[in-house]
């Protein structure tokens, strides 16, 4: 096992972590500000991917496709918020779970109806394809590197947005006390729509970016949604910092575990059973990580009291 392989896997873990961060950031913001659990966040990821695939197929431009993913997911998110979600803020979590589960059914079947059951493909543009040489002699796909950079840029942008801007102040105030910010004269329902659409846009962007590596299909958002839940449970619900830390932890654990656990098992097992036992354990690794963190800190790494 060479160090190049290890570094490469670390970069892969970083890339998965960045994707998860894009998903988890929206979820955790929406929970932190509005107190809402949104299962349909994965549908917005899917909307972004389908919008990107459709626009790329139509215009051939990857940049336009990414723009479309942001716009479509933000629009779908705003619509979702205006029609359904805002009726749920005062409801209990059970209602939120059920209503957003219903939204998943509607979005998934609606997309299947529009685009069919066959996966679409979104190609990596030529200027982003191929490997790039990194210091240390590592050849790494340029596109994956781009995803990492976009993720970092979004993270930096979000921290700036929340720390420095007016809307960031409103978001932080909203987390602290809803009545207070309404009393300060902030149009709270507009703020909620904006925050929801922002989270949706990030999910849509993640969907489009991943869509170029994997296929674009109905249901693609759900595995990611559940990983994003694990991320924010680990990081602490409502915390952007926690979402970033959790996303990196989950991304690394999942990637490194699935590569190195079978190899580790092969040290003391025959290759075939090592491969299968290693794969089985690797598939459960992030959940074991989550359970371990919960035992020590029931409200996550950066969470206050739940």
């Amino acid at each position, binding site marked *: 096992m060479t160090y190049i392989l290890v570094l490469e896997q670390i970069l892969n873990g970083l890339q998965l972590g960045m994707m998860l961060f894009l998903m988890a950031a929206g979820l955790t913001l929406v929970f932190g500000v509005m107190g809402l659990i949104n299962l349909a966040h994965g549908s917005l990821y899917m909307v972004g991917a389908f919008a990107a695939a459709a626009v790329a197929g139509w215009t051939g431009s990857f940049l336009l496709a990414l723009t479309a993913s942001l716009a479509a997911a933000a629009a779908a998110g705003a619509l979702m918020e205006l029609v*359904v979600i805002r009726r749920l803020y005062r409801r209990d979590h059970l209602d939120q779970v059920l209503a957003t589960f219903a939204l998943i059914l*509607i979005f998934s079947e609606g997309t299947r109806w529009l685009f069919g059951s066959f996966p679409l493909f979104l190609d990596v543009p030529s200027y982003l394809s191929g490997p790039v040489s990194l210091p240390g002699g590592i050849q790494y796909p340029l596109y994956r590197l781009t995803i990492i950079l976009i993720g970092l840029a979004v993270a930096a942008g979000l921290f700036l947005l929340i720390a420095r801007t007016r809307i960031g102040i409103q978001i932080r105030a909203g987390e602290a006390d809803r009545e207070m910010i309404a009393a300060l004269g902030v149009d709270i329902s507009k703020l909620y729509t904006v925050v929801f659409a922002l989270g949706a846009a990030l999910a849509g962007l993640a969907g489009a970016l991943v869509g170029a590596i994997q296929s674009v299909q109905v249901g693609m958002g759900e595995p990611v949604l559940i990983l994003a839940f694990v991320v924010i*449970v680990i990081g602490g619900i409502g915390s952007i910092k926690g979402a970033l830390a959790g996303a990196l932890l989950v991304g690394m654990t999942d990637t490194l575990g699935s590569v190195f656990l079978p190899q580790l098992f092969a040290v003391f097992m025959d290759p075939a059973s090592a491969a*299968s036992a290693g794969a089985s354990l690797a598939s459960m690794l992030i*959940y*074991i990580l989550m359970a371990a963190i*919960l035992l020590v800190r*029931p*409200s*996550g790494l950066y969470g206050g009291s739940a």
Partner: protein
Amino acid sequence: MMLTRESLLNWAMIAALLIVPVAAWSLDEPFIITLATKAAILALAGVGLNIALGLGGLISLGHAAFFGIGGYAMGILAAHAQNYEPLFEWPFLFEGSNQMPLIWLVAVVFSALAALVIGALSLRTSGVYFIMITLAFGQMLYYFAISWSAYGGEDGLSIWVRNEFPGLNTLDPIQFFAIAYVILCLALAFAARLARSPFGLALAAARQNEDRVQAVGLTPFTLRLTAFVISGAITGLAGALFADLNRFVSPTMLSWHTSGEIMIFVILGGVGRLYGPVAGTALYILLEHLLGGISDYWQIFLGVLLLLIVLFARGGLIGALAGREKAHG
């Protein structure tokens, strides 16, 4: 006891669930018997969930774990039995089993154990954390089943012949229905007694006011964990029956969509209503059958219906037909 509209409705539903398949049997319509069997089994899964959800207020999005464990208990025992491969040889030789009572016992024990572990971890938290964590543990088992190639991995596990029950021909649809129906009735009777028992009183009180329960010297965690284990065990039993109905078990039974669907059965009928899962499952199967015949995309309608119920008709089907719930006393 005075018959309320709700209890009349309950009797009518449980009677209808018996009459429809019996009529179908006399008219020689085995497909309808199978649908009714499916409804009875899924309602059983819902009765299990409802103990945690309705009585205990525990929003578990991970009950597919128990449903799937029950399914795999059936699949693994029956697969070993049909292939004459010993499941283990120590401390005694065990070649699996195709006897339902033993399969049920194993399904109940293992899903209860899983519920004990998952519950002990998840119940350290509450609110959205609890929802997400139960969801995550369910998904963990789902991915584990996919990667577990010894028992079919992603493809699942097929059983050639339905398992046996002493004295009955389980291959005859109406006899298998009878098994599922009797178990459902027993589970409903158990859930009804549970709700009125000292344990049920304390459990539902913990849902309404945790401080109060602690102040009278009772521990909400222990009450909830017990409820979660009972709930998981019943859902696990339903999983074993469901796998036997299909003679097939696959990771799909463990997926979070299954958890969502079991919850939908409970909600369509009405949260916290004893017979809610029966009404909800019947409605679901009916919708699936009727709308599914019209459109491949029938789940859009299901989604819209569910959304409307959540937003505008909290009581579900029973609430709409029987009116507001009384304080039971």
